[in-house]
Protein backbone atom coordinates (compact mmCIF):
# COMPACT_ATOMS: atom_id res chain seq x y z
CA UNK A 1 0.00 0.00 0.00
CA UNK A 2 1.65 3.29 -1.08
CA UNK A 3 2.66 5.53 1.81
CA UNK A 4 2.37 2.79 4.33
CA UNK A 5 4.92 0.73 6.14
CA UNK A 6 5.18 -2.79 4.89
CA UNK A 7 4.36 -4.84 7.92
CA UNK A 8 4.10 -8.58 7.77
CA UNK A 9 0.80 -9.19 9.49
CA UNK A 10 -1.22 -12.22 8.64
CA UNK A 11 -4.53 -10.43 8.75
CA UNK A 12 -4.97 -7.69 6.12
CA UNK A 13 -7.29 -5.82 8.46
CA UNK A 14 -4.46 -5.48 10.94
CA UNK A 15 -2.28 -4.02 8.17
CA UNK A 16 -4.89 -1.38 7.38
CA UNK A 17 -5.17 -0.40 11.06
CA UNK A 18 -1.40 -0.13 11.40
CA UNK A 19 -1.25 2.19 8.39
CA UNK A 20 -4.06 4.40 9.64
CA UNK A 21 -2.43 4.76 13.06
CA UNK A 22 0.99 5.80 11.72
CA UNK A 23 0.48 8.85 9.49
CA UNK A 24 3.77 10.62 10.28
CA UNK A 25 5.88 7.54 9.82
CA UNK A 26 3.84 6.67 6.79
CA UNK A 27 4.51 10.08 5.24
CA UNK A 28 8.25 9.71 5.76
CA UNK A 29 8.17 6.16 4.54
CA UNK A 30 5.98 7.28 1.69
CA UNK A 31 8.59 9.77 0.58
CA UNK A 32 11.21 7.04 0.74
CA UNK A 33 9.01 4.59 -1.10
CA UNK A 34 7.64 7.13 -3.59
CA UNK A 35 10.99 8.24 -4.98
CA UNK A 36 12.27 6.78 -8.23
CA UNK A 37 14.78 3.94 -7.79
CA UNK A 38 17.29 2.20 -10.02
CA UNK A 39 17.32 -1.54 -10.58
CA UNK A 40 19.80 -1.93 -7.73
CA UNK A 41 17.49 -0.10 -5.32
CA UNK A 42 19.29 3.21 -5.10
CA UNK A 43 17.47 6.53 -5.43
CA UNK A 44 17.41 7.35 -9.14
CA UNK A 45 18.47 10.95 -9.61
CA UNK A 46 18.41 10.89 -13.39
CA UNK A 47 16.55 13.72 -15.00
CA UNK A 48 16.90 17.43 -15.48
CA UNK A 49 17.18 19.69 -12.43
CA UNK A 50 17.48 23.39 -11.68
CA UNK A 51 17.53 25.69 -8.67
CA UNK A 52 15.12 28.55 -8.11
CA UNK A 53 17.05 31.02 -5.98
CA UNK A 54 19.37 34.00 -6.15
CA UNK A 55 22.52 32.18 -5.03
CA UNK A 56 24.27 32.78 -8.36
CA UNK A 57 24.20 36.49 -7.51
CA UNK A 58 24.91 36.16 -3.81
CA UNK A 59 24.96 33.14 -1.51
CA UNK A 60 24.10 35.47 1.36
CA UNK A 61 21.06 37.74 1.72
CA UNK A 62 20.67 40.03 -1.27
CA UNK A 63 18.55 43.17 -1.73
CA UNK A 64 17.05 44.05 -5.09
CA UNK A 65 19.52 46.07 -7.18
CA UNK A 66 19.64 47.62 -10.61
CA UNK A 67 21.75 45.61 -13.08
CA UNK A 68 25.40 46.67 -13.07
CA UNK A 69 25.46 47.64 -16.74
CA UNK A 70 23.55 49.53 -19.41
CA UNK A 71 20.14 47.91 -18.79
CA UNK A 72 19.31 48.74 -15.15
CA UNK A 73 15.81 47.29 -15.30
CA UNK A 74 17.34 43.83 -15.83
CA UNK A 75 18.27 43.95 -12.18
CA UNK A 76 19.20 41.58 -9.41
CA UNK A 77 16.21 40.12 -7.54
CA UNK A 78 16.13 40.14 -3.75
CA UNK A 79 16.89 36.74 -2.26
CA UNK A 80 17.43 35.09 1.05
CA UNK A 81 20.90 33.63 1.40
CA UNK A 82 21.55 29.90 1.18
CA UNK A 83 24.33 29.96 3.79
CA UNK A 84 23.38 28.45 7.16
CA UNK A 85 23.25 31.38 9.59
CA UNK A 86 23.95 33.77 6.67
CA UNK A 87 27.53 34.06 7.99
CA UNK A 88 30.65 33.05 6.06
CA UNK A 89 33.45 32.60 8.64
CA UNK A 90 36.31 34.29 6.75
CA UNK A 91 39.69 34.90 8.28
CA UNK A 92 40.42 38.66 8.49
CA UNK A 93 42.65 38.57 5.37
CA UNK A 94 40.11 36.52 3.45
CA UNK A 95 37.32 38.92 4.41
CA UNK A 96 39.36 41.85 3.09
CA UNK A 97 39.90 39.88 -0.10
CA UNK A 98 36.14 39.29 -0.39
CA UNK A 99 35.48 43.01 -0.05
CA UNK A 100 38.09 43.79 -2.72
CA UNK A 101 36.59 41.10 -4.96
CA UNK A 102 33.13 42.60 -4.56
CA UNK A 103 34.39 46.10 -5.37
CA UNK A 104 36.08 44.89 -8.57
CA UNK A 105 33.68 42.11 -9.49
CA UNK A 106 33.02 43.49 -12.96
CA UNK A 107 36.59 42.57 -13.92
CA UNK A 108 37.68 40.00 -11.34
CA UNK A 109 34.79 37.54 -11.41
CA UNK A 110 35.90 34.47 -13.41
CA UNK A 111 32.39 34.40 -14.85
CA UNK A 112 33.41 37.49 -16.84
CA UNK A 113 35.47 35.15 -19.04
CA UNK A 114 32.82 32.41 -18.86
CA UNK A 115 35.30 30.05 -17.27
CA UNK A 116 34.21 26.82 -15.55
CA UNK A 117 32.44 28.10 -12.41
CA UNK A 118 33.69 25.53 -9.92
CA UNK A 119 31.65 23.69 -7.31
CA UNK A 120 29.16 24.44 -5.79
CA UNK A 121 28.58 27.50 -7.97
CA UNK A 122 27.84 25.33 -11.04
CA UNK A 123 24.88 23.79 -9.21
CA UNK A 124 23.11 27.09 -8.69
CA UNK A 125 23.99 28.86 -11.94
CA UNK A 126 20.58 29.77 -13.40
CA UNK A 127 20.64 26.98 -16.00
CA UNK A 128 19.33 23.40 -16.00
CA UNK A 129 21.54 20.35 -15.60
CA UNK A 130 21.00 16.68 -16.35
CA UNK A 131 22.02 13.69 -14.25
CA UNK A 132 22.51 10.19 -15.66
CA UNK A 133 23.25 7.32 -13.36
CA UNK A 134 24.85 3.88 -13.35
CA UNK A 135 25.61 1.73 -10.29
CA UNK A 136 29.21 2.97 -10.06
CA UNK A 137 29.24 6.28 -11.95
CA UNK A 138 27.08 9.34 -12.40
CA UNK A 139 27.55 12.09 -14.93
CA UNK A 140 26.21 15.58 -14.31
CA UNK A 141 25.89 17.52 -17.57
CA UNK A 142 25.29 21.26 -17.14
CA UNK A 143 23.84 23.56 -19.79
CA UNK A 144 26.18 26.35 -18.57
CA UNK A 145 29.24 26.14 -20.81
CA UNK A 146 28.52 22.40 -21.25
CA UNK A 147 30.31 21.64 -17.98
CA UNK A 148 30.57 17.95 -17.05
CA UNK A 149 31.17 16.58 -13.58
CA UNK A 150 32.18 12.94 -13.35
CA UNK A 151 31.01 11.44 -10.04
CA UNK A 152 32.78 8.13 -9.40
CA UNK A 153 30.57 6.09 -7.07
CA UNK A 154 32.75 2.97 -7.15
CA UNK A 155 34.51 3.13 -3.81
CA UNK A 156 37.63 4.66 -5.33
CA UNK A 157 39.66 7.36 -3.61
CA UNK A 158 40.52 10.76 -4.98
CA UNK A 159 43.64 10.56 -7.13
CA UNK A 160 46.78 11.69 -5.38
CA UNK A 161 47.51 15.38 -5.59
CA UNK A 162 48.62 17.98 -6.04
CA UNK A 163 45.97 18.60 -8.69
CA UNK A 164 44.24 21.90 -9.37
CA UNK A 165 41.04 21.50 -11.33
CA UNK A 166 38.30 24.08 -11.85
CA UNK A 167 35.58 21.53 -11.02
CA UNK A 168 37.54 19.42 -8.56
CA UNK A 169 37.49 15.62 -8.41
CA UNK A 170 34.29 13.95 -7.20
CA UNK A 171 33.96 10.61 -5.37
CA UNK A 172 30.47 9.58 -4.26
CA UNK A 173 28.93 6.94 -2.01
CA UNK A 174 25.43 6.15 -0.79
CA UNK A 175 24.59 6.82 2.85
CA UNK A 176 21.15 5.24 2.97
CA UNK A 177 19.17 7.21 0.45
CA UNK A 178 21.58 10.16 0.45
CA UNK A 179 24.25 10.56 -2.20
CA UNK A 180 27.33 11.89 -0.44
CA UNK A 181 30.01 13.34 -2.72
CA UNK A 182 33.49 14.31 -1.58
CA UNK A 183 34.99 16.98 -3.83
CA UNK A 184 38.68 17.78 -3.69
CA UNK A 185 41.56 19.15 -5.82
CA UNK A 186 40.43 22.68 -6.67
CA UNK A 187 42.33 25.64 -7.99
CA UNK A 188 41.91 29.04 -6.31
CA UNK A 189 40.39 30.67 -9.39
CA UNK A 190 36.66 30.13 -8.89
CA UNK A 191 34.19 32.10 -6.78
CA UNK A 192 31.06 31.01 -4.96
CA UNK A 193 28.89 33.73 -6.54
CA UNK A 194 28.94 37.13 -8.31
CA UNK A 195 29.47 38.90 -4.99
CA UNK A 196 33.14 37.95 -4.66
CA UNK A 197 32.92 35.08 -2.18
CA UNK A 198 36.08 33.04 -2.73
CA UNK A 199 38.21 30.11 -1.57
CA UNK A 200 41.73 28.72 -1.84
CA UNK A 201 43.14 25.63 -3.54
CA UNK A 202 42.88 23.83 -0.20
CA UNK A 203 39.09 23.81 -0.27
CA UNK A 204 37.31 20.49 0.07
CA UNK A 205 33.56 19.93 -0.06
CA UNK A 206 31.06 17.34 1.04
CA UNK A 207 27.82 17.45 -0.97
CA UNK A 208 24.67 15.65 0.15
CA UNK A 209 21.85 15.01 -2.31
CA UNK A 210 18.59 13.69 -0.77
CA UNK A 211 15.15 13.36 -2.34
CA UNK A 212 12.45 15.34 -0.55
CA UNK A 213 9.84 14.00 -2.96
CA UNK A 214 9.95 12.54 -6.46
CA UNK A 215 10.62 15.89 -8.05
CA UNK A 216 12.68 17.71 -5.44
CA UNK A 217 16.17 17.09 -4.10
CA UNK A 218 17.64 18.75 -1.04
CA UNK A 219 21.23 19.79 -1.83
CA UNK A 220 23.55 20.56 1.04
CA UNK A 221 27.24 21.46 0.86
CA UNK A 222 29.76 21.64 3.69
CA UNK A 223 32.76 23.81 2.82
CA UNK A 224 36.13 23.29 4.51
CA UNK A 225 39.11 25.53 3.71
CA UNK A 226 41.44 26.31 6.66
CA UNK A 227 43.39 28.78 4.51
CA UNK A 228 40.28 30.97 4.01
CA UNK A 229 37.75 30.18 6.76
CA UNK A 230 38.04 29.82 10.52
CA UNK A 231 35.72 26.79 10.52
CA UNK A 232 33.67 24.68 8.08
CA UNK A 233 30.35 26.15 7.01
CA UNK A 234 27.25 24.93 5.15
CA UNK A 235 24.84 26.02 2.49
CA UNK A 236 21.65 24.27 1.39
CA UNK A 237 18.99 24.67 -1.28
CA UNK A 238 16.43 22.72 -3.26
CA UNK A 239 16.88 21.27 -6.76
CA UNK A 240 13.63 21.17 -8.73
CA UNK A 241 12.93 18.67 -11.48
CA UNK A 242 12.21 20.31 -14.86
CA UNK A 243 8.93 18.69 -15.87
CA UNK A 244 7.89 20.54 -19.00
CA UNK A 245 7.10 18.02 -21.77
CA UNK A 246 10.14 17.32 -23.96
CA UNK A 247 12.35 19.53 -21.81
CA UNK A 248 16.00 19.28 -22.84
CA UNK A 249 19.30 21.03 -22.23
CA UNK A 250 20.26 23.64 -24.82
CA UNK A 251 23.61 25.44 -25.03
CA UNK A 252 25.17 28.44 -23.30
CA UNK A 253 28.74 28.70 -24.63
CA UNK A 254 29.26 32.28 -23.44
CA UNK A 255 33.04 32.00 -23.85
CA UNK A 256 32.33 32.29 -27.59
CA UNK A 257 30.26 35.47 -27.30
CA UNK A 258 31.63 38.60 -28.88
CA UNK A 259 32.92 40.84 -26.12
CA UNK A 260 33.82 37.79 -24.03
CA UNK A 261 36.04 35.74 -26.35
CA UNK A 262 39.66 36.79 -26.54
CA UNK A 263 40.24 38.99 -29.56
CA UNK A 264 36.77 40.51 -29.41
CA UNK A 265 36.95 42.27 -26.05
CA UNK A 266 37.00 46.09 -26.18
CA UNK A 267 40.55 46.34 -24.81
CA UNK A 268 42.06 43.75 -27.20
CA UNK A 269 44.49 45.39 -29.64
CA UNK A 270 45.15 42.85 -32.39
CA UNK A 271 48.40 42.60 -34.33
CA UNK A 272 47.82 39.86 -36.91
CA UNK A 273 50.92 38.21 -38.31
CA UNK A 274 51.84 38.70 -41.97
CA UNK A 275 51.15 35.60 -44.08
CA UNK A 276 54.40 33.84 -45.13
Amino acid at each position, binding site marked *: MKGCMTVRIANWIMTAVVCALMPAAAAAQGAAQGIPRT*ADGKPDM*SGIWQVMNGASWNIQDQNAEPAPHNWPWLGIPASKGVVEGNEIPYTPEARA*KKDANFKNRAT*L*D*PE*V*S*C*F*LPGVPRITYMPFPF*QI*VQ*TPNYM*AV*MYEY*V*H*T*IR*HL*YVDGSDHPEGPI*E*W*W*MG*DSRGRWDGDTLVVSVKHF*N*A*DTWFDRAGN*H*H*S*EEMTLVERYTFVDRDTINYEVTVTDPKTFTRPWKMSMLLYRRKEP*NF*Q*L*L*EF*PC*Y*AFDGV*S*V*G*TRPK*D*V*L*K*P*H*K*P*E
Partner: protein
Amino acid sequence: MKTYRYVSVLALLTAGLLMLPSYAAAQTAAQKRWDPPKTQDGQPDIQGFWGQRSDITTYSIQAGAIDREEHTRLGGQATQFGRPIIDPPTGMIPYRPEATERAKFLNAQHRAPQKPEYLDPVSRCFMEGLPRLIYQGGMRILQYPTYIVFLHEWSHHFRVVYLDGRPPAGSNIKMWMGDSRGRWEGNTLVIDVTNNNDRTWFDIVGSFHTDQLKVTERWTFTDPDTIEYIATIDDPKIYAQPWKLKVDLGRNKPEEQWESAMCEGNKAVHVAFDLPFEHEVPTNAK
Protein backbone atom coordinates in the same frame (compact mmCIF):
# COMPACT_ATOMS: atom_id res chain seq x y z
CA MET B 1 25.89 -20.73 -87.16
CA LYS B 2 23.08 -20.14 -84.76
CA THR B 3 24.50 -22.62 -82.25
CA TYR B 4 27.92 -21.00 -82.39
CA ARG B 5 26.46 -17.56 -81.83
CA TYR B 6 24.35 -18.89 -78.94
CA VAL B 7 27.35 -20.57 -77.35
CA SER B 8 29.52 -17.45 -77.67
CA VAL B 9 26.81 -15.25 -76.15
CA LEU B 10 26.41 -17.76 -73.35
CA ALA B 11 30.18 -17.83 -72.85
CA LEU B 12 30.25 -14.06 -72.63
CA LEU B 13 27.38 -14.02 -70.18
CA THR B 14 28.99 -16.71 -68.03
CA ALA B 15 32.30 -14.90 -68.08
CA GLY B 16 30.48 -11.73 -67.11
CA LEU B 17 28.66 -13.45 -64.28
CA LEU B 18 31.86 -14.99 -62.96
CA MET B 19 33.41 -11.53 -62.89
CA LEU B 20 30.65 -10.11 -60.70
CA PRO B 21 31.52 -10.26 -57.00
CA SER B 22 29.24 -12.56 -55.13
CA TYR B 23 26.56 -10.86 -53.05
CA ALA B 24 28.19 -12.06 -49.83
CA ALA B 25 31.53 -10.48 -50.71
CA ALA B 26 29.83 -7.26 -51.81
CA GLN B 27 28.18 -6.86 -48.39
CA THR B 28 29.80 -4.06 -46.44
CA ALA B 29 30.80 -4.48 -42.86
CA ALA B 30 27.49 -2.82 -42.10
CA GLN B 31 25.50 -5.69 -43.53
CA LYS B 32 27.29 -8.61 -41.82
CA ARG B 33 24.87 -10.39 -39.60
CA TRP B 34 25.62 -10.95 -35.96
CA ASP B 35 23.58 -10.86 -32.80
CA PRO B 36 25.11 -8.36 -30.38
CA PRO B 37 24.47 -8.37 -26.65
CA LYS B 38 21.47 -6.18 -25.83
CA THR B 39 20.60 -3.68 -23.13
CA GLN B 40 17.66 -4.49 -20.85
CA ASP B 41 15.29 -2.61 -23.14
CA GLY B 42 16.54 -4.40 -26.25
CA GLN B 43 19.01 -2.00 -27.85
CA PRO B 44 22.30 -3.40 -29.20
CA ASP B 45 24.58 -2.68 -26.27
CA ILE B 46 27.27 -0.24 -27.37
CA GLN B 47 27.97 1.07 -23.90
CA GLY B 48 31.58 1.61 -23.00
CA PHE B 49 34.63 3.52 -24.10
CA TRP B 50 35.39 4.06 -27.79
CA GLY B 51 38.06 5.80 -29.85
CA GLN B 52 39.00 6.13 -33.51
CA ARG B 53 41.21 3.63 -35.27
CA SER B 54 41.18 5.47 -38.61
CA ASP B 55 44.37 7.51 -38.48
CA ILE B 56 42.39 10.74 -39.03
CA THR B 57 43.77 14.05 -37.91
CA THR B 58 41.65 17.13 -37.32
CA TYR B 59 44.23 19.22 -39.18
CA SER B 60 42.68 18.59 -42.59
CA ILE B 61 40.11 16.03 -43.68
CA GLN B 62 40.72 16.46 -47.41
CA ALA B 63 44.30 16.30 -48.66
CA GLY B 64 46.53 13.78 -46.93
CA ALA B 65 50.24 14.03 -47.72
CA ILE B 66 50.25 17.70 -48.75
CA ASP B 67 48.80 18.89 -45.47
CA ARG B 68 51.00 16.47 -43.54
CA GLU B 69 54.07 18.29 -44.74
CA GLU B 70 52.63 21.70 -43.93
CA HIS B 71 51.31 20.66 -40.52
CA THR B 72 54.72 19.30 -39.58
CA ARG B 73 56.44 22.46 -40.80
CA LEU B 74 54.03 24.81 -38.95
CA GLY B 75 53.63 22.97 -35.71
CA GLY B 76 56.46 20.51 -35.46
CA GLN B 77 53.91 17.75 -35.08
CA ALA B 78 53.58 15.02 -37.67
CA THR B 79 49.98 14.60 -38.74
CA GLN B 80 48.38 11.38 -39.81
CA PHE B 81 47.48 10.04 -43.22
CA GLY B 82 43.84 9.09 -42.78
CA ARG B 83 41.51 10.52 -45.42
CA PRO B 84 38.04 10.13 -43.95
CA ILE B 85 35.90 11.31 -46.90
CA ILE B 86 34.56 8.23 -48.70
CA ASP B 87 32.05 9.93 -50.94
CA PRO B 88 32.83 11.50 -53.36
CA PRO B 89 35.62 9.02 -54.15
CA THR B 90 38.05 11.92 -54.69
CA GLY B 91 38.07 12.43 -50.92
CA MET B 92 37.37 16.13 -51.46
CA ILE B 93 34.39 18.17 -50.27
CA PRO B 94 32.04 18.84 -53.23
CA TYR B 95 31.65 22.59 -52.83
CA ARG B 96 29.33 24.53 -55.09
CA PRO B 97 31.34 26.84 -57.37
CA GLU B 98 30.24 29.92 -55.41
CA ALA B 99 31.52 28.40 -52.14
CA THR B 100 35.01 27.43 -53.30
CA GLU B 101 36.32 30.98 -52.94
CA ARG B 102 35.50 31.08 -49.23
CA ALA B 103 36.99 27.60 -48.74
CA LYS B 104 40.23 28.72 -50.40
CA PHE B 105 40.20 31.97 -48.40
CA LEU B 106 39.82 30.21 -45.04
CA ASN B 107 42.47 27.65 -45.95
CA ALA B 108 44.89 30.45 -46.80
CA GLN B 109 43.99 32.41 -43.64
CA HIS B 110 44.66 29.57 -41.22
CA ARG B 111 48.41 29.98 -41.53
CA ALA B 112 48.26 33.62 -40.35
CA PRO B 113 44.67 34.63 -39.59
CA GLN B 114 44.01 38.33 -40.02
CA LYS B 115 40.97 38.23 -37.70
CA PRO B 116 40.15 35.92 -34.76
CA GLU B 117 37.14 34.57 -36.65
CA TYR B 118 39.55 33.13 -39.25
CA LEU B 119 41.30 31.05 -36.59
CA ASP B 120 40.00 27.52 -36.10
CA PRO B 121 37.15 27.68 -33.56
CA VAL B 122 38.38 24.58 -31.73
CA SER B 123 41.83 26.16 -31.31
CA ARG B 124 39.97 29.05 -29.69
CA CYS B 125 38.31 26.53 -27.30
CA PHE B 126 34.91 26.69 -29.03
CA MET B 127 32.74 23.63 -29.61
CA GLU B 128 33.60 20.89 -32.08
CA GLY B 129 30.31 20.28 -33.86
CA LEU B 130 29.59 16.98 -35.62
CA PRO B 131 31.10 14.91 -37.01
CA ARG B 132 34.43 16.50 -36.00
CA LEU B 133 33.93 15.50 -32.35
CA ILE B 134 33.96 11.85 -33.44
CA TYR B 135 37.46 12.01 -34.93
CA GLN B 136 38.75 14.40 -32.25
CA GLY B 137 39.06 12.01 -29.36
CA GLY B 138 37.59 9.20 -27.34
CA MET B 139 34.12 8.93 -25.85
CA ARG B 140 32.04 7.04 -23.34
CA ILE B 141 28.56 5.80 -24.30
CA LEU B 142 25.74 5.21 -21.78
CA GLN B 143 22.38 3.86 -22.96
CA TYR B 144 18.93 4.33 -21.45
CA PRO B 145 15.50 3.39 -22.81
CA THR B 146 14.64 6.86 -24.13
CA TYR B 147 18.06 8.39 -24.74
CA ILE B 148 21.72 7.62 -25.32
CA VAL B 149 24.39 9.78 -23.72
CA PHE B 150 27.80 10.40 -25.29
CA LEU B 151 30.43 11.82 -22.94
CA HIS B 152 33.62 13.22 -24.46
CA GLU B 153 36.50 14.14 -22.20
CA TRP B 154 37.92 16.60 -24.76
CA SER B 155 36.73 20.04 -23.79
CA HIS B 156 33.88 18.47 -21.80
CA HIS B 157 31.48 17.87 -24.69
CA PHE B 158 28.34 15.80 -24.17
CA ARG B 159 25.36 14.77 -26.30
CA VAL B 160 21.97 13.51 -25.22
CA VAL B 161 20.46 11.70 -28.19
CA TYR B 162 16.72 11.20 -27.69
CA LEU B 163 15.28 7.92 -28.96
CA ASP B 164 11.65 8.50 -27.98
CA GLY B 165 10.47 10.08 -31.23
CA ARG B 166 10.16 13.58 -29.84
CA PRO B 167 10.66 16.26 -32.49
CA PRO B 168 13.90 18.25 -32.55
CA ALA B 169 13.95 21.79 -31.22
CA GLY B 170 12.23 24.43 -33.36
CA SER B 171 14.23 25.49 -36.41
CA ASN B 172 15.05 28.89 -34.90
CA ILE B 173 17.17 27.23 -32.22
CA LYS B 174 20.68 26.78 -33.54
CA MET B 175 23.44 25.06 -31.61
CA TRP B 176 27.12 24.26 -32.04
CA MET B 177 26.45 20.55 -31.51
CA GLY B 178 23.04 20.67 -33.16
CA ASP B 179 20.13 18.66 -31.80
CA SER B 180 20.25 14.87 -32.05
CA ARG B 181 17.43 12.37 -32.49
CA GLY B 182 18.20 8.67 -32.86
CA ARG B 183 16.62 5.34 -33.75
CA TRP B 184 17.90 1.79 -34.22
CA GLU B 185 17.77 0.05 -37.59
CA GLY B 186 18.94 -3.47 -36.75
CA ASN B 187 22.49 -3.08 -35.51
CA THR B 188 22.81 0.47 -36.79
CA LEU B 189 22.09 3.52 -34.67
CA VAL B 190 20.91 6.29 -36.98
CA ILE B 191 21.18 9.80 -35.56
CA ASP B 192 19.79 12.88 -37.28
CA VAL B 193 21.63 16.03 -36.23
CA THR B 194 19.68 19.17 -37.06
CA ASN B 195 19.54 22.72 -35.65
CA ASN B 196 23.21 23.36 -36.40
CA ASN B 197 24.63 26.85 -36.30
CA ASP B 198 27.28 28.00 -38.81
CA ARG B 199 30.11 28.47 -36.31
CA THR B 200 31.93 25.11 -36.40
CA TRP B 201 34.57 23.82 -38.84
CA PHE B 202 35.22 20.22 -39.82
CA ASP B 203 38.98 20.73 -39.49
CA ILE B 204 41.68 23.27 -38.60
CA VAL B 205 42.17 24.47 -42.17
CA GLY B 206 38.67 25.87 -42.46
CA SER B 207 36.27 23.33 -43.96
CA PHE B 208 33.12 25.27 -43.18
CA HIS B 209 29.33 24.96 -43.45
CA THR B 210 26.20 27.10 -43.06
CA ASP B 211 23.31 26.82 -40.63
CA GLN B 212 21.50 24.67 -43.19
CA LEU B 213 23.81 21.81 -42.26
CA LYS B 214 22.20 18.44 -41.55
CA VAL B 215 24.31 15.50 -40.46
CA THR B 216 23.02 11.93 -40.57
CA GLU B 217 25.17 9.56 -38.57
CA ARG B 218 25.12 5.78 -38.93
CA TRP B 219 26.81 3.93 -36.10
CA THR B 220 26.97 0.27 -37.12
CA PHE B 221 27.96 -2.21 -34.47
CA THR B 222 29.86 -4.80 -36.49
CA ASP B 223 31.52 -6.88 -33.78
CA PRO B 224 31.93 -6.63 -30.00
CA ASP B 225 34.83 -4.18 -30.31
CA THR B 226 34.05 -2.33 -33.52
CA ILE B 227 31.66 0.36 -34.66
CA GLU B 228 31.73 1.63 -38.23
CA TYR B 229 30.75 5.31 -38.18
CA ILE B 230 29.59 6.95 -41.37
CA ALA B 231 28.34 10.54 -41.42
CA THR B 232 26.44 12.00 -44.34
CA ILE B 233 26.91 15.76 -44.45
CA ASP B 234 24.31 17.80 -46.27
CA ASP B 235 24.24 21.57 -46.73
CA PRO B 236 22.48 22.41 -49.98
CA LYS B 237 23.54 26.04 -49.69
CA ILE B 238 27.23 25.32 -50.30
CA TYR B 239 27.63 21.68 -51.32
CA ALA B 240 26.72 20.40 -54.78
CA GLN B 241 25.75 17.07 -53.21
CA PRO B 242 25.77 15.43 -49.77
CA TRP B 243 29.13 13.88 -48.90
CA LYS B 244 30.18 11.13 -46.52
CA LEU B 245 33.01 10.51 -44.14
CA LYS B 246 33.90 7.34 -42.27
CA VAL B 247 35.57 6.78 -38.93
CA ASP B 248 36.41 3.29 -37.66
CA LEU B 249 35.82 3.13 -33.93
CA GLY B 250 37.34 0.55 -31.64
CA ARG B 251 36.64 -0.29 -28.05
CA ASN B 252 39.06 1.32 -25.59
CA LYS B 253 40.13 0.10 -22.19
CA PRO B 254 37.81 1.70 -19.58
CA GLU B 255 39.52 4.67 -18.00
CA GLU B 256 38.24 7.49 -15.82
CA GLN B 257 37.39 10.64 -17.74
CA TRP B 258 38.84 13.74 -16.11
CA GLU B 259 38.62 17.48 -16.49
CA SER B 260 39.61 18.99 -19.83
CA ALA B 261 39.43 22.76 -19.44
CA MET B 262 40.06 24.19 -22.91
CA CYS B 263 39.13 27.87 -22.50
CA GLU B 264 40.80 28.51 -19.17
CA GLY B 265 44.37 29.41 -20.02
CA ASN B 266 43.86 29.12 -23.80
CA LYS B 267 46.43 31.32 -25.55
CA ALA B 268 45.81 30.54 -29.23
CA VAL B 269 44.43 34.01 -30.00
CA HIS B 270 47.12 35.67 -27.88
CA VAL B 271 49.82 33.90 -29.91
CA ALA B 272 48.19 34.55 -33.29
CA PHE B 273 47.55 38.24 -32.60
CA ASP B 274 50.38 39.23 -30.23
CA LEU B 275 48.09 39.95 -27.29
CA PRO B 276 49.89 40.27 -23.96
CA PHE B 277 50.06 37.03 -22.05
CA GLU B 278 48.55 38.23 -18.77
CA HIS B 279 46.60 35.77 -16.66
CA GLU B 280 43.02 36.08 -17.83
CA VAL B 281 41.56 36.38 -14.36
CA PRO B 282 43.60 37.48 -11.36
CA THR B 283 44.06 34.47 -9.16
CA ASN B 284 43.73 34.06 -5.43
CA ALA B 285 46.59 31.55 -5.43
CA LYS B 286 49.89 32.78 -4.00
